[in-house]
C-alpha cells in the first residue's frame, strides 16, 4: 500500500512536471519567420522584436552545459556555477556556525535563568524583527570588507531562531528529568551536558533548521548587494547580461541547494530526536 502510494505520488509529480514544462514551452516559442529576413533582422539575430522568457528546452540545454563544467574560472565575471555556489555556501556556513557558537550557549543561559531571560528579552524582541539586510550599510562601514559584511548579515539573521529555540527548549526541559539529575547529585555542568542538552536537542535542532533556511534566503539578497562572487551575485549579473536562461537556471540551483541544506539538518535532527 505504502509503495503503491509512493509510486502514485511519484507518477503524479512527473505528470505535473511534464504538463508545467509543456505549457511553459508552448507559450514561449519564437514566432515563425514569415518569409526571408531583412538585413536588419539578420543583424539583430532573428525576427524577434520582443524579449521573451526562454522555454525549458533552452534552459535545460543551458543547465546541461553549465553543470558539465561547474568549476571553470574565466575571470571575475565568468565563473562556473559550482564556484559561485561554493562561495555562497562558504559565507552561509561561516556566518551560521559563528551564530550557533553564540546563540546556543547564550540560549542556554537565557533558558536556565529567568533573570537573564527577563533582562535580555527586550533586546531580543527589538533586534529580532530587523531585516538582516538593514544591517548591511552599518556592517560595511564598520567591517570595511564586503565579504565579511555578507558573513555578518548571515550571522545576524541566523542567530535569532537558534537563540530563541535553545532558550525555549532549555526552559521547558521536563522538571522530572532535572530532578533525576538533582537526586543523582550531578554538578551543574554535568546536568547541562547529560540531561538538559539532550533533552533540549530536538528543539535546538529545529531552531538550527529554521536558521539555515533563513540564512540561505538572505545570502542571495546579500550577495546581490555586495557583488563579486556568489550565487546571489551570479543571478544579478546574469540579469544585467540579459541572460534569462542563466537566471532561471541559477534560481533552480538556489532551490536545490536550499533543499539539500534542509535535508542535511533534518538528518542531524533525526539523530537527536527521542520519543517520550
Amino acid at each position, binding site marked *: 500500500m505504502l509503495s503503491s502510494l509512493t509510486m502514485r505520488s511519484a507518477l503524479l509529480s512527473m505528470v505535473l512536471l511534464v504538463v508545467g514544462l509543456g505549457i511553459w514551452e508552448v507559450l514561449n516559442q519564437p514566432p515563425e519567420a514569415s518569409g526571408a529576413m531583412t538585413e536588419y533582422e539578420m543583424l539583430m539575430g532573428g525576427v524577434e522584436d520582443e524579449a521573451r522568457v526562454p522555454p525549458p528546452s533552452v534552459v535545460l540545454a543551458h543547465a546541461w552545459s553549465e553543470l558539465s563544467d561547474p568549476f571553470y574560472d574565466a575571470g571575475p565575471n565568468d565563473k562556473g556555477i559550482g564556484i559561485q555556489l561554493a562561495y555562497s555556501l562558504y559565507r552561509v556556513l561561516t556566518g551560521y556556525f559563528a551564530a550557533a557558537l553564540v546563540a546556543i550557549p547564550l540560549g542556554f543561559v537565557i533558558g536556565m535563568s529567568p533573570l537573564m531571560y527577563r533582562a535580555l528579552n527586550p533586546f531580543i524582541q527589538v533586534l529580532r524583527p530587523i531585516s538582516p539586510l538593514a544591517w548591511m550599510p552599518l556592517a560595511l562601514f564598520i567591517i570595511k570588507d564586503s565579504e565579511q559584511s555578507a558573513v555578518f548579515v548571515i550571522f545576524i539573521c541566523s542567530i535569532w531562531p537558534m537563540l530563541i529555540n535553545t532558550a525555549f527548549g532549555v526552559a521547558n526541559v521536563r522538571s*522530572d*528529568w532535572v*530532578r*533525576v539529575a538533582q*537526586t*543523582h*547529585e550531578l554538578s551543574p555542568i554535568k546536568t547541562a551536558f547529560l540531561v538538559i542538552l539532550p*533533552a533540549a536537542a530536538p528543539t535546538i535542532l529545529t531552531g538550527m533548521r529554521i536558521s539555515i533556511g533563513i540564512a540561505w534566503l538572505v545570502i542571495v539578497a546579500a550577495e546581490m548587494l555586495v557583488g563579486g562572487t556568489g550565487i546571489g551575485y551570479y543571478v544579478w549579473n546574469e540579469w544585467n547580461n540579459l541572460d534569462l536562461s542563466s537566471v532561471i537556471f541559477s534560481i533552480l540551483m538556489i532551490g536545490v541547494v536550499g533543499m539539500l541544506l534542509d535535508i542535511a539538518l533534518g538528518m542531524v535532527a533525526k539523530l537527536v530526536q*527521542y520519543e517520550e
Partner: protein
Amino acid sequence: MSRHFVSVEGLSKTFPAAGEDLVVFEDINIGIDKGEFVCIIGHSGCGKSTIMNVLAGLDAPSNGSVIMDGKEVSGPSLDRGVVFQNYSLLPWLTASQNVAFGVKARWPQWSKQKVLEHSHTFLEMVGLSHSLDKKPSQLSGGMRQRVSIARAFATSPKLLLLDEPFGALDALTRGIIQDELIKIWSETHQTVFMITHDVDEAILLADRILLMTNGPHAQVAESVTINLPRPRNRATIINDPNYYTIRNHLVHFLVNRSEELSGVSQADKTATQVVDPTQGPDAGSSESSQSVSTDNVATDDTEMPLKNVAL
C-alpha cells in the same frame, strides 16, 4: 528521636496565600529504622508528596527538619534514591544506559565495564535482561517502572523513596512488580519510605503504615504496625487471619476518621498514635482476634506515647 535511622522532626509546610496562609501539614514526626519498610497513606492534598520531596531534599520545609544517619538533609543526595510515579527515565537513553546513568553518578571512578555489569545485574533482578537496549518509549509502563526501580536500587541508597510507584499501572502489572519489589527488598534490605493510595499494597509491603489526616493542617495520626509474617505473598496473605483486621482498620480510618481527625484541636494532634489493629479493643470486634497469638505483640519502639485507640 535521634536513635532512628531517619527522623523527621516537627515538619510543616505552609504556602503563602491571600489572607491566611495555607498550612498543608504541620508538626509531622516520623521515625524510620534501618531496614524498615514504611508506607504512608492519606487522601490527596494531605501533603504526602511534599513530605517525600522534603525527604529527598528536593523541597524545603517551612519548619522542622529531617535527620538521616546523624546528618540533616539539606539537599538532594545519592544517599536517598527516588522512584517517581511517572518513572522519570531519560527517554534518549536505553534501559541499560538509564540504570548506568545512576551507577556512574554514584561511583564515578568505576570502569565502563564495571558500571555495565552492575547495571545489568539490577536489570536482571527486575526481569529486564532481554530489554537492555530498548528506549523507554519502546517499553510498557510496567517495564519502565522496573527500569526506574532498578536504577534506584543499583545506586544502593541508604534510604529509598517511592512516590506512588505503581499508581499509573494496571492492577495485573502492579501485582507482578510488587512481587519483584518484595524480592529485591528481601535481598537488599533497603530502608524504604513509600507513598501509596492502595491499602492492600501497603499491607503487602510495609512493616509499618503511617496514616495521615486530611489537609489542610494534615497530621500523621497513626502508625500502624503490620505484624504479618514475612515472606509475604500476594496470593496467600489474604488468608492470614489478621489480614482483614488490619485492612478494615485502615479503610475505616481513610473513609471516616481521616476527615474527623483533621479537625481535632492542636493539643491532641501532635502525638502520632502507635496502633496494632490485631491487638487491643478493635481487634476484639473481629473474629480473627481469636487467632491472635502473643508473638504478634507490637514491637514498635518509637518514643511517641503509646495509647490504645478506641475506634
